[in-house]
């Protein structure tokens, strides 16, 4: 009677979940009906069971379950019915309705209510009806799932009944699957079992696969059908896994894109190796943190908009820091990329330590606004809102940047200075100003990346360190000076990384990817989409 116990537990859980006590009748009423169980012969007991089931009370399954186990006893003195637990040689009695302790009772003073197979069937169908046919759909679903897991042939009649009246398609499907599992466990004819396997295979879930794996080694038609069904489910699940990994990959790719896109401007367009780029991302994240702190203390109602407010703040903070660095350090080092690299590394150390002094070395908590928390699923793929927004945000930033470069005066001047500095200066473009603004733009975009990353990563002074090598890899892989290359590079590396992970593990996957990029650069030293040129030394 394993499944009865399960169903009783389901009912008890559901009862615990519903403080409103919707499915209950008065204690005294129920007590009277329970007392009827101890009234006389099998016929009376059967009537009493039907009577109890008709109440629909959620305490009934537990009582009936105990009855089936032979743990329901009548006190000879007054004919009252109790749960009886063995306590040494005597019994300890509990009121079945209120759960109140009724004290110990010597063996001679109580009598067990006798149960035969007819009564057991009556109990099974009553409990099944109470849970599988409960008015609460959640209880029905839980009951069906419990039967499916227990795969007990005894549940078949109750299931048949329930399926006949079930109207919610989902729950009906779960019940049909539960019937199939019960059928497989029973001694039904082989043709029924094969049909049952087909019904389980239709579920296509991991649970179904786990259940089928118990039958794949069986002989005959059942084994064949189970093996075939298991293989079908496996290939289906593998497709969903691929889909999930692809999604993770796109998500990682969008993070890489955000981190690298600013670098694509400063390194790709200007040719400046900015090792402090990661620190610009970090500044953006800390700007987000500061904005949220101010909002938390002063305008708590605006919290849901905190990220939108943080965007311009982070952009301006990082852009100003970038312009400051460009004017004070980098402009003296144009044409000497290796020196630029070292100097900006120094700047990155100073920025890290400055943030550590200001905000402390510990991680800072940046909250998720309500519209970014939670997740939903598409098929078997879990999609979190945070990741989805970050992907959209990364694409939006990317397109905005393309628009700035291709459609604005500043973009035109930037491209002019990049292509031919002397000629640009000759036609009247103020190249130092354009340099500063370009660098500011690249840094500002890194700041925007910081806002997004604050949602998924630890905001600490070391935040930027983790992204700098990856960002350079993306830019170099995609092809320096080509924004579309950066997009393709970021998404390719993100997806490749996540696709490798299930086979190689996270760390080894990353190592393989790094080595692959190193080898790739040997083959195409200028990246995937190299700018064509005639210079010997670009």
């Amino acid at each position, binding site marked *: 009677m394993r499944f009865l116990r399960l169903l009783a537990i389901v009912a008890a859980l559901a009862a615990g979940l519903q403080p409103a006590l919707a499915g209950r009748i008065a204690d005294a009423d129920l007590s009277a009906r329970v007392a009827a169980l101890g009234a006389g012969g099998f016929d009376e007991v059967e009537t009493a069971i039907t009577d109890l089931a008709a109440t629909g009370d959620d305490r009934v399954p537990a009582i009936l379950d105990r009855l089936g186990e032979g743990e329901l006893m009548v006190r000879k003195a007054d004919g009252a019915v109790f749960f009886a637990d063995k306590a040494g040689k005597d019994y300890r009695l509990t009121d079945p309705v209120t759960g109140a302790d009724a004290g110990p009772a010597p063996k001679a003073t109580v009598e067990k209510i006798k149960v035969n197979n007819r009564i057991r069937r009556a109990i099974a169908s009553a409990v099944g009806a109470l849970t599988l046919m409960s008015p609460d759909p959640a209880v029905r679903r839980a009951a069906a799932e419990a039967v499916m897991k227990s795969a007990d042939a005894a549940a078949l009649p109750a299931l048949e009944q329930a399926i006949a009246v079930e109207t919610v398609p989902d729950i009906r499907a779960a019940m049909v699957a539960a019937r199939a599992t019960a059928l497989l466990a029973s001694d039904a004819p082989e043709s029924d079992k094969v049909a049952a396997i087909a019904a389980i295979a239709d579920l296509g879930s991991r649970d179904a696969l786990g259940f089928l794996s118990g039958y794949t080694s069986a002989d005959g038609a059942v084994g064949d059908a189970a093996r075939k069904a298991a293989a079908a489910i496996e290939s289906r699940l593998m497709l969903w896994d691929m889909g999930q990994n692809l999604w993770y990959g796109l998500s990682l790719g969008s993070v890489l894109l955000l981190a690298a896109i600013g670098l694509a401007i400063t390194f790709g367009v200007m*040719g400046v*190796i900015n090792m402090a780029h990661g620190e610009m991302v970090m500044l953006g994240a800390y700007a987000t943190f500061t904005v949220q702190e101010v909002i938390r203390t002063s305008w708590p109602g605006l919290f849901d908009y905190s990220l939108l407010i943080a965007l311009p703040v982070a952009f301006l903070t990082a852009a100003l820091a970038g312009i400051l660095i460009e004017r004070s*350090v980098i402009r*003296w*080092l144009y*044409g*000497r*990329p*290796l*020196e*630029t*690299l*070292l*100097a900006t*590394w*120094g*700047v*990155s*150390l*100073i920025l*890290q*330590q*400055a943030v*550590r*002094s200001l905000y402390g070395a510990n991680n800072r908590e940046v909250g998720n606004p309500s519209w970014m928390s939670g997740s939903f699923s598409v098929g078997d793929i879990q999609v979190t809102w945070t990741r989805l927004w970050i992907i959209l945000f990364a694409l939006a930033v990317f397109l905005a940047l393309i628009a700035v470069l291709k459609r604005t005066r500043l973009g035109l001047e930037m491209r002019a200075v990049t292509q031919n500095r002397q000629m640009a200066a000759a036609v009247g473009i103020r190249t130092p100003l354009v340099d500063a603004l370009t660098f500011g733009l690249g840094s500002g975009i890194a700041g925007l990346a910081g806002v997004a990353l604050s949602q998924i990563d630890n905001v600490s002074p070391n935040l930027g*360190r983790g992204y700098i*090598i990856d960002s*350079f*890899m993306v830019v*170099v892989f995609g092809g320096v000076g080509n924004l579309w290359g950066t997009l393709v590079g970021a998404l390719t590396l993100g997806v490749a990384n996540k696709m490798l992970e299930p086979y190689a593990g996270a*760390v*080894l996957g*990353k*190592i393989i990817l*790094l*080595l692959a*990029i*190193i*080898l790739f*650069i*040997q*083959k195409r*030293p200028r990246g995937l989409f190299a700018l064509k040129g005639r210079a*010997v*030394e*670009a």
Partner: protein
Amino acid sequence: MITSFLIDSLDRRGRIVVGLLVALALLVPAGNLLVPEGSAFHVSTYQLTLFGKYLTYALLALSVDLVWGYCGILSLGHGAFFALGGYAMGMYLMRQIGARGVYADPVLPDFMVFLNWKELPWFWHGFDMAWYALLMVILVPGLLALLFGWLSFRSRVTGVYLSIITQALTYALLLAFFRNDMGFGGNNGLTDFKDIVGFPIQAPGTRAALFAASALMLALGFVVASAVVRSKLGKVLVAIRDAESRTRFIGYRVEHYKLFVWTLSAVMAGVAGALYVPQVGIINPSEFDPAASIEAVIWVAVGGRGTLVGPLIGAVAVNFGKTWFTGALPEVWLYALGALFVVVTLFLPRGIVGLWDRVVSRRTKPAKEMDGSGRRAGEAA
């Protein structure tokens, strides 16, 4: 004959440096072992070990300078070669522990017993013999550099691209050595050493000997580097640094020259790592950190790249500063290091040695202009 050739290759300044190093190798251990405590000339064991560590850093800096200062290859991954040499030495020292480990396994190092490994991985065989370990100290970094350099130089990956992929290389190795399954002790690395070639590693005599070995090895490295840069090959290297394409057009096989000096430099870094490990008593994956490699570059920049004395001065000076700052004012150290990077690249492109030369030449030959060989006009934008 080779010795006399090597000695002849030194200029006046080089002879002074080598003489000083040999004197250090003799006097500092003597000051530690023979001079009684309390005397003004006594060197404590702590100072001895610390300075021994600086000397191995100086050798690493020299190896970076050889490729960066003389051939224009800015390696941001020389720490990888240093650490590989260190790991080779660490593996030897681990095998020397024998049954004295916590788990008292006669063959397997403690961390392998801890991971429930039954057999020594194949790449750990042979490390119980000192000669084999020493061979590996040279071969492992050398072969990796040879392979990496052969691929990179052949396909003409230059300038910042090369810098970035050297950084990626050391980063990949960092991640790899963090993994427990690699069989190099994972996060904790290799430590708890007992003996080196039969002598207890903590004994004052062993420490003094390791110090002397570091000083002499640095002197040897200096002499070799000096021989390289003063030979015709060295002139070609400088030509490659200043105008790679022109050198190629003249008819030199640029990649062969680069590969030679790159591999030599990696071997020097590996030897430095091997001397470093027994003195500090531990080697762990943090030596592969890209930040550590960049720090080695700044030692060279501070001392003066393109000079052989510079890296020695830079490595010792910066690390002395680091020891002092992290002890006295830990908050300030990163500011100081960061500022050092900026100030040196902006205002002291030829480092301390360049500054010294300028002061001296102004005093003695006020008319002669500096040749500015630290600059490379127009190259590799």
